[in-house]
């Protein structure tokens, strides 16, 4: 199915179109990251409808738009967004592969401190893996860390 010309269309309307017209894509990829030494590893799971939008193309805004809005929100006097138009009026990104979509999602939904220098310490702070590589039970969930085996 061809994506309509969504230039200038509100992002929420684009997502509603996708919800009605695209089949969700349940990705097997997971992103495991550690953003605090005091906390266990976190596991990012892509949303199936979002993944369908990413693979379809012409729906999602470029990831820099989210970074711009995050900068606004980080201001001490932030009350509400005044540049929401960036989400709606910026040209949507073309279709991505599943791997490209995961990279986009990391830059959108993981803390910037993790993905900008994920491999600069003694061990990786972030790993992209398949869900089958994660523990199959929740035992000791609050002690989970990125293991050498997973990092390899």
């Amino acid at each position, binding site marked *: 199915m061809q994506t309509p010309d969504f230039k200038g269309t509100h992002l929420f309307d684009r997502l509603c179109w996708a919800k009605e017209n695209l089949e969700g894509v349940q990705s097997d990829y997971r992103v495991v990251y550690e953003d605090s030494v005091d906390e266990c590893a976190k596991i990012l*799971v892509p949303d199936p409808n979002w993944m369908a939008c990413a693979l379809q193309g012409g729906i999602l805004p470029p990831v820099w738009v989210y970074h711009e809005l995050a900068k606004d929100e980080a201001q001490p006097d932030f009350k509400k967004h005044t540049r929401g138009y960036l989400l709606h009026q910026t040209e949507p990104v073309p279709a991505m592969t599943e791997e490209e979509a995961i990279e986009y999602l990391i830059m959108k939904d993981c803390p910037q401190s993790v993905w900008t220098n994920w491999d600069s310490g003694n061990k990786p702070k972030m790993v992209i893996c398949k869900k089958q590589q994660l523990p199959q039970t929740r035992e000791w969930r609050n002690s989970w860390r990125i293991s050498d085996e997973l990092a390899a």
Partner: protein
Amino acid sequence: MAGKIIADTLEHSTAGSIATNYVVEGSAKVWANVNASGTPATQDSNNLSSITDTSAGVTTFTFTNGMNDANYASYGTVRRTDDSNGNPYLTGYHLPTTTTVRFTIIDFNGTETDSGYISMSILGDLA
């Protein structure tokens, strides 16, 4: 987009009328149903980009179209996988930003615990 109707009021033949801003303001801007047992995964949703399994009993939801501010209303319920009538779980939400909200599930002992399913929704204004 084709099929656009601009209207301030919807009127029923007998039941009266409603201003369309009630519909716009009152509809959920984000919703999701998550299977949180084992490796969590979204079962269905709208306007969600990812969930993060943050720790035992803690799940973070991230939106595709963020909210205008962090003063939105968030709702959530949980249910056990086996539908048993055991201890009910309670939810709390934390650290809301315009793009994320974090739900914590605790049991009656106050211990953070995983549940079978989480349903959540967000009401408020979109960015």
